[in-house]
């Protein structure tokens, strides 16, 4: 493989709960090239966020535990680093923004404090330098009156503004990788569009590599180059955006794409939905985790969990069936 910025191999994360061990991430492998934008899609609870948090070793432990896998960032395994080393990767090299901007900023600290903290921490700036940079950052993410707003507290900002502040915080140290964990889910559509535009602009200006976690396939289509579809803690399909949308191979991907409302639909009809709920995995699955909800399910699907296989140029899928014919591949 050409040199990857981030190379995750066989990542497994489990949570010990009173009801038993939950297998949240089951052998996830993916690579990330410098400058690309990777979309990670899937329903809630399919392991998207946990995978990314595991890479940064941010899952609460206990009860969470990364049981296997490697995550090479520039040749260094993040999962083997000391706490001190990984602390200097977080924020400085790999940054992250979260879903809910209303709760992601500390209510008792000023925006200035929260914005300058990573600068003081990783770049060794002094207070004045950090302040100047913080103003610059706020202007960059499009907050008017940046200078005056520095002294404000989070509650004095609206939701969209707070997400902008979060982005400014994440970008403070010019990280190589930005992990965006559903950053637009809690925002209304117009603000969503603004934030996506902002991220696109910043990506092009700063040449950032982005991992964009979402369950909105529409956003991914406009933003990402490559897409990973996750289900039940597995990657079940991986392809370039156009290929995935034009030629989905996994029944789950087909279901996801099918359940999007379309503006060019001719007749009025019920919106398609996939029956059932994603599984909570208390056992390491021996069958395909999607089989209970799959209309192509065959005998083999109940006995053996499919592995990712290459089915086309840069297109990998984990399914026994060929969705075109409905028979085994």
């Amino acid at each position, binding site marked *: 493989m050409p040199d990857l910025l981030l190379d995750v191999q066989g990542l497994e994360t489990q949570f010990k709960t009173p009801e038993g061990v939950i297998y949240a991430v089951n052998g996830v492998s993916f690579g990330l090239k410098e400058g690309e934008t990777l979309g990670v899609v899937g329903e809630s609870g399919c392991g998207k966020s946990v995978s990314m948090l595991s890479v940064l070793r941010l899952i609460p432990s206990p009860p969470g535990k990364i049981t296997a896998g490697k995550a090479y960032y520039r040749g260094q395994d993040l999962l083997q680093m000391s706490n001190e080393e990984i602390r200097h990767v977080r924020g400085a090299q790999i940054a992250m923004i979260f879903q809910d901007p209303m709760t992601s900023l500390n209510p008792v*600290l000023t925006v200035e404090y929260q914005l300058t*903290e990573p600068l003081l*921490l990783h770049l060794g700036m002094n207070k004045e330098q950090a302040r100047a940079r913080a103003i610059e950052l706020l202007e960059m993410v499009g907050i008017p009156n940046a200078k005056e707003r520095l002294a404000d507290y989070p509650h004095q900002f609206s939701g969209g503004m707070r997400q902008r502040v979060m982005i400014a915080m994440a970008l403070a140290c010019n990280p190589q990788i930005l992990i965006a964990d559903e950053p637009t889910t809690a925002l209304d559509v117009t603000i969503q569009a603004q934030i996506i535009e902002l991220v696109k602009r910043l990506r092009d200006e700063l040449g950032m590599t982005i991992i964009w976690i979402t369950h909105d396939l529409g956003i991914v289509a406009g933003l990402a180059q490559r897409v990973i579809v996750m289900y039940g803690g597995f990657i079940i399909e991986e392809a370039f955006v156009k290929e995935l949308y034009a030629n989905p191979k996994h029944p789950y991907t087909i279901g996801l794409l099918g359940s999007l409302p379309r503006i060019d639909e001719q007749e009025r009809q019920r919106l398609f939905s996939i029956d059932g709920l994603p599984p909570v995995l208390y056992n390491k699955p021996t069958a395909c985790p999607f089989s209970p909800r799959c209309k192509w399910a065959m005998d083999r699907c109940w006995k053996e969990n499919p592995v990712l296989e290459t089915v086309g140029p840069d297109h990998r899928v984990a399914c026994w069936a060929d969705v075109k014919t409905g028979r085994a591949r």
Partner: protein
Amino acid sequence: MAQPETASPAPNVLADSINMRKIGRVERFLGPEYYRILRGLLTTPASIAGLFLITLFAFIAIAAPLIAPPLPNQNPYKIPRDGFSPDPKPPMTEWRRLPPPLPFWWKPIMGTDKWVHLMGTASGQWDIFYGVIWGTRTAFWTGILITSVTLLLGVLIGTVSAYYGGLLDNILMRIVDVFLTLPFIMAALILAAVLIPKLGRSVIPTVIALIAFGWMGYSRLVRGDILSVRERDYVLAARVIGVKDSRIMFTHILPNAIFPTLVIASLDVGTYVLSFAALSFLGIGTDIGYADWGQLLSFARSWITSLGTYWYIVVWPGVALVLYVLGWNLLGDALRDVLDPRMRGRS
């Protein structure tokens, strides 16, 4: 390039037209939360009464050398005595033996330069007035010292316990449980009694004993609040940035979790002064003759059956103690009301 000077920045039409709340300098300096607390404390009647009492006592404590000037070359905390007779003398009895210097306010008001026992004397001829005035200082510094050290200790243990969780949390909380099983006054009494031969008779052994058995409540309280704050997104956001554990604990989490504990602590200042007085009353603690309300009360022990005659040996220090504790309680109650989110927006 020289730009034409505009007379003034364009008036902010929008802000003026929608009548925005002006944010003053104090509010900007303190931040919205602390400003709201301060404003609440200054407008609630109970808190004004509490603040008034505490301020009054603070004034007495600070001005003690002026109100009741001590004998020259003597420890001012040592209550001056007028002889050794066991019978208490009533208020306004004249000083006979070695009177301390006359305070400056006495002559203008009373027109004589004969210093009297303003509040009478206790058994053994200890002057109650001096005891009450200088005892205010003792009350302040023991109360505040005990509360702040217990608070610090309790918060530290509770924070570490909750933040790291797991085995450490288990061990620390079981220690808390063990300490909570001991009856507070009894345990403090025994510890102080053990410490006195080692450290000598002074305020210190009692203070240590009260601290040693007082921190557990704060630990538990702060632990509970931190357990909930720890899971908030902004804590994760701070970890994502790469902030150190200690900094996350004390600057990101603790300010969001400390208020309930602070309220209890402010209510406890009075309680600790009471406990201290109780130990003093039982004869554990300071030297005999040290200015301390509990000790003054203990002088009344042998006269407890004839308080009809000797009311002043109990009333003066008693009233001081009651008002002092009341002041802290009112303040603490007001603080609780101000900080209670359910009370927001009311009154």
